[in-house]
């Protein structure tokens, strides 16, 4: 399997990783937090715990959400009411499960793209490893 530069970096950083079962590695993961619905499926499928659901919520995710969505409706209502820009993330009570910001840690991400396949809101893109011809040759 040809490895991208990023894929090789991942392998060097995490030598115990086996390439045998994976179909891809070293994808560039691009998260669109404004589309995220906070379901946490990316955190559930992530093999390296690079995605994790935390007990805090960034209110800007409501204000930036697209207008047709549920979060967008909340954002529209909040925009009518707000007197200033949100001051930092808010702590989320235990029983509120979806209004949580997902943390993404690029340092431990393998770039396998499992999160992008699992995401129901198309909020995560896994860009295929770009293989430069010179890199394949080496």
């Amino acid at each position, binding site marked *: 399997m040809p490895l991208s530069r990023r894929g090789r970096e991942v392998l060097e950083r995490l030598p115990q990783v086996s390439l045998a079962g994976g179909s891809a590695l070293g994808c560039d993961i691009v998260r669109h937090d404004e589309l995220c619905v906070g379901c946490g499926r990316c955190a559930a499928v992530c093999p390296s715990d690079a995605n994790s659901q935390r007990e805090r*919520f960034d*209110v800007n995710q*409501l204000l930036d959400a697209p207008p047709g969505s549920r979060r967008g409706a909340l954002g529209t*209502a909040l925009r*009518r*009411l707000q007197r200033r820009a949100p001051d930092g993330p808010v702590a989320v009570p235990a029983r509120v499960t979806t209004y949580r910001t997902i943390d993404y840690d690029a340092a431990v991400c393998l770039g396998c793209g499992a999160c992008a396949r699992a995401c129901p809101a198309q909020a995560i893109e896994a860009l295929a490893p770009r293989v430069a011809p010179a890199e394949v040759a080496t």
Partner: protein
Amino acid sequence: MRLPAQVDRVTPDASAVPAVASRAAERRRAIVAFCCRECAYAAADASANARTPLPPTVRLVLLPCTGRVSPLHLLEALAGDADGVMVAGCLEGQCHYREGNFNALDRVLFVQRVLASVGVEPERVRMFTMSAGEPPRFAAAVREMDRAVAALPPLSRS
């Protein structure tokens, strides 16, 4: 049947005029009360049967359980016309659907924190609990909410 001559139904008493004006101010204020069918709405019903006067500002919304309340209900009510939103459910541990009132309480807390983070008074959204056999407690909750909201500066909407 003719009315007795001394009953004047057209010209209001001069002393009644300020009362009418304050009633108009009260009418401009609005509180939405999301009530669960099992406890709070039953208490509201009994309180109405007992002819307990409620503040004219309150509007009741019947829900099967307060667990149905979503942050969107609370924020949309405020963004629409309400100055305060109250969620009234069963006593802790007595929810007829086991844990709906705990879910509602956490959503109320979440909305309070979101409101506080954008500079809106979090007291505008509150959770109350009562049993079906406590109509005075429902009336007291509504009066308390009404008093608290009346003390706040008007809610500006853009």
